[in-house]
């Protein structure tokens, strides 16, 4: 066995030595895909479509994304291209890796001269920034029509291209008498919200990072000040204790409110593997007085039965007199891999889904997802009427929780915490390590 171990070590050292000889990536020279993107940013959707037909007719198109809807969007895209060239054919496959593996998959694929994936739809601004963009693995394409709709130009716009913003909102089971009227209620003594573990879904961690941002920590402070004295007395020592940590972590004046909320949340939330099961739990009659932070659109999939109903839950921020943050918003971004085998087709696809109501309909037909293109957002609301999604055919408000009040309401009134990739990346190893030190809640510990 000694010999085996010795041999393994020797092989390891050889491998490392060889690996050290690997060439580094070429400097800042524009890649072929970047050149195509530059050209594509000056083209209309129809012009792009023609380029796509020329490039990909009869070929295979691989997409990878955090949303499964890419699979439903592609046939619509193909139908659109067929209106220009009826003989157009495209075989496609859409993959949806889980457990953060999309980053490994894209990183490994980037090693090839010509990659497998033509396009990606990806979430988690923090990792996108540090692992995908700074490393040159993904390129941003800004469609002409999208830029116009947002009163900007491809050159002037500096961020990534968001397809949509999704929201996770606080919802509670209302079969009992308990109500949640302030965002600090979620972290009060004895509360255990249902939430996807921050280590399973990293965007959840970004939500916590964002709470240390001065703007959202300010929201928390405002809400704290509106608490009754008895509850204030419970939170004040925690907030005071966080002041030193906030200073050490280089946070702003209100940072201690963010840290206090995060500490109490991490030490109390009940980890669930996905938003689907959280929703399925909360709508049950027996889940009295439980609450969770979950993707709003999950409500669409609940079927009424004797013990399950959408009327068993309430969206906290929709209730009169609610104070503080109502949830968290994060984006699905569109990118073209720097070694995309079909860059023109990828650009045309991106333009189609971000600039047309039909293209966005794979996501837009359901509540809780808001197009980043104002024209498409308005068209989607007009077509699907999500603001009255809870009304039945007789025009009665049957399920109030399904009446989606829209992006603007959520940001302004619902005080949605919006992910900022740059901020998240900047605190990932300061606030991030601090969060890792906290002890997560386990029922056994009680």
């Amino acid at each position: 066995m000694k010999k085996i171990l010795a041999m393994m070590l020797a092989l390891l050292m050889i491998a490392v030595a060889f690996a050290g000889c690997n060439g580094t990536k070429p400097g800042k020279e524009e890649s072929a895909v970047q050149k195509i993107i530059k050209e594509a940013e000056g083209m209309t959707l129809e012009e792009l479509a023609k380029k796509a037909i020329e490039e990909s007719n009869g070929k295979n198109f691989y997409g990878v994304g955090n949303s499964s809807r890419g699979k439903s969007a592609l046939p619509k895209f193909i139908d659109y291209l067929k209106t220009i060239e009826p003989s157009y054919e495209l075989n496609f496959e859409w993959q949806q890796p889980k457990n953060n593996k999309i980053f490994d998959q894209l990183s490994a694929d980037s090693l090839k001269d010509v990659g497998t994936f033509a396009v990606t739809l990806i979430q988690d601004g923090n990792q996108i920034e540090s692992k995908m963009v700074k490393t040159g693995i993904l390129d941003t394409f800004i469609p002409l029509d999208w830029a116009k709709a947002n009163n900007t130009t491809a050159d002037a716009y500096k961020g990534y291209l968001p397809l949509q913003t999704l929201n996770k909102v606080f919802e509670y089971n209302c079969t009992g008498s308990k109500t949640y009227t302030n965002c600090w209620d979620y972290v009060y003594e004895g509360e255990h919200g249902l939430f996807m573990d921050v280590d399973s879904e990293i965007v959840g961690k970004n939500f916590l990072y964002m709470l240390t941002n001065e703007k959202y920590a300010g929201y928390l402070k405002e809400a704290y000040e509106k608490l009754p004295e008895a509850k204030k007395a419970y939170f004040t020592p925690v907030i005071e204790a966080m002041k030193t940590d906030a200073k050490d972590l280089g946070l702003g004046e209100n940072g201690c409110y963010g840290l206090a909320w995060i500490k109490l949340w991490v030490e109390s939330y009940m980890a669930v593997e996905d938003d689907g099961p959280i929703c399925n739990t909360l709508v049950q009659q027996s889940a009295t007085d439980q609450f969770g932070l979950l993707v709003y659109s999950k409500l669409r999939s609940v079927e009424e039965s004797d013990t399950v109903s959408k009327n068993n839950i309430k969206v906290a921020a929709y209730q009169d007199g609610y104070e503080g943050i109502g949830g968290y918003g994060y984006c699905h971004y569109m990118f073209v891999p720097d070694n995309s085998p079909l860059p023109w087709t990828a650009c045309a696809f991106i333009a189609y889904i971000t600039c047309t109501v039909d293209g966005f309909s794979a996501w837009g037909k359901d509540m809780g997802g808001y197009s980043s293109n104002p024209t498409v957002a308005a068209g989607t609301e007009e077509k699907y009427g999500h603001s009255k999604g809870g009304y039945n055919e007789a025009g009665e408000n049957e399920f109030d929780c399904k009446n989606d009040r829209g992006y603007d309401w959520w940001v302004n009134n619902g005080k949605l915490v919006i992910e900022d990739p740059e901020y998240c990346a900047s605190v990932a190893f300061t606030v991030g390590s601090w969060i890792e030190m906290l002890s997560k809640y386990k029922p056994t510990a009680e």
Partner: protein
Amino acid sequence: MQNRAMKRRVRLNKLKTFFSKPQNIILLVLGIVLTVTTVAPIIAIAKDTITVHPGTIDANISGKTEGFTLANYVDLFTSRTAKTNLWTPLVNTLLLSTIACVVSIVFGGVFAFLITRTNLKFRKYLSSIFIFPYIMPQWTLAVVWKNLFYSNAVTHSANGLLASVFGITMPAWWCQGLFPSAMVLGLHYAPFAYILIGGIFRNMDANLEEAATILDTPRWKTMFRITLPMIKPAILSTVLLVFGSAMGSYPVPHYLNFETLSTKYISMNSSRTGEASILAIIMMVFGVAILLANQLTLKSRKSYTTVTGKSGQISRFNLGKSGKYVIGAILIVITFFTSIYPIISFAFETFLPNPGDYSFLYTGNIQNLTTKWWITSENVTENGMYGQQGMLYNKTIWHAYGGTLLVSVACALTAGIIGTLIGYAVSKNRRSKWANYVNNMAFLPYLMPSIAVGVAFFILFSNKYVNLFNTYWLLIIVGTVKYIPFASRASLNSMLQLSGEIEEAAIIQDIPWFKRMFRIIVPIQKSSIISGFMLPFMTCLRELSLFMLLCTQGYILSTTLDYFDEMGLYAFSSGINLILIVTILIFNTVVNKVTGASLDEGIGG
């Protein structure tokens, strides 16, 4: 000159003699192949521990964007997060693996003894039903556990079946953490112990035990001094298999909220990629340690021969007139909960309007059941279908099913043949260092966490020269490498029992090797060898961690099942579970009819 020619002739003769033995050729060829397929992933993981990963902690600490650093080791072992990220998960993992081993060996071993060595009633039924927990993906048992025992009062969720129907609330330690994780894994791997230990019990000549009885040795002494030592290789193999598997199990502790090295591996992989790879290395080190311990123990004994050329017979312990019925009935009740209840639960789940919605049970109202998960033939998004067609019409599911069959059959055949050959060759050259090396090389992939092996092969085969990503070739290669240990262990155990005189008799009569294998060795150890084919087949059918990086969700059934589980579409995942169970039962029956032996009947029948 003459001297040199002589020496050359001697050397040539030695070579000729060496290659005249088939076991030497097998060991040489497989030794080289396995070194490559096993060492390459290890190197990839080891290299990963010192590589700088942009956007992760090592890049942050070292200030580099590429190259190599020791920052991962320093941070993991010495930083303030060491307790959270390393020591606590490590202790938890060891506890989980140890308890899972004990549960599986005690449960599986006692069961094997009762089935093979006593006059217990209902043996055939019990033997067939016992392997069911292993057929099912392990996390589905965890889901069943949750559905049974969770409650609003303790786990802050909706009430599970026990709480809602009987008002019974189980304590927190029963619902989440070490206990349920160890129980679920122990039950899941108990069929390992049953198959391996039962195989030996079945073949064991009772002469030794009878001699002890004649000498008036107490029963407990016979058990501890004769029976147990004879099944020691099988117990050690079970420990090896269960410990390694439990250590690398991700879904069970994940679903039951228990932090282990494998759950940490996944959670740290995004921001502490290199440190996660160190955890993988630590898991491998423990695996190698058990392998070494196993080897030392086996070396201390001269022989485990239980099958000889002499006539042998099995004597069955008499459980008494009522005892054989009472114990049989108790086992039927136990196996009902471990094997039948999950299946009923899966079937029931496919008729619920919402996942976990047991309205029908409370109200008896048939309106609270639905067939939509089976027969919806159009693409609808309402009513929780998420744009999926019902299972009978769902092309994704049936395409994945075809893929799974292809990969499983190919892996089972390849791993089974290679493993059997290794077992044979190693048993023939037991004292040879090279044979031990080949045996260890074949076993090493099993000790590596599946997810880490998947990552390593993904990196190995996704480059500009070879691109096997999302091909069945890649799944078959990885599956074969990972599952050879099943076959090699099963084969080695049985071959070690086989006395050399059996083959020697045939050699004296100048019977060729192929004929010796197919006419003598394989027929004698048929049940163990078939286990070596069936275990990779069954494992491959519902393997997830190994394949999740290598293909898309509609490519094979386990990734599809996991996808539906993740979406909360338990009706689909439960339906897929049923499909898997039925498939394995069909294969088991076909193998039984064709060869006359099968995984369970070979032992229990």
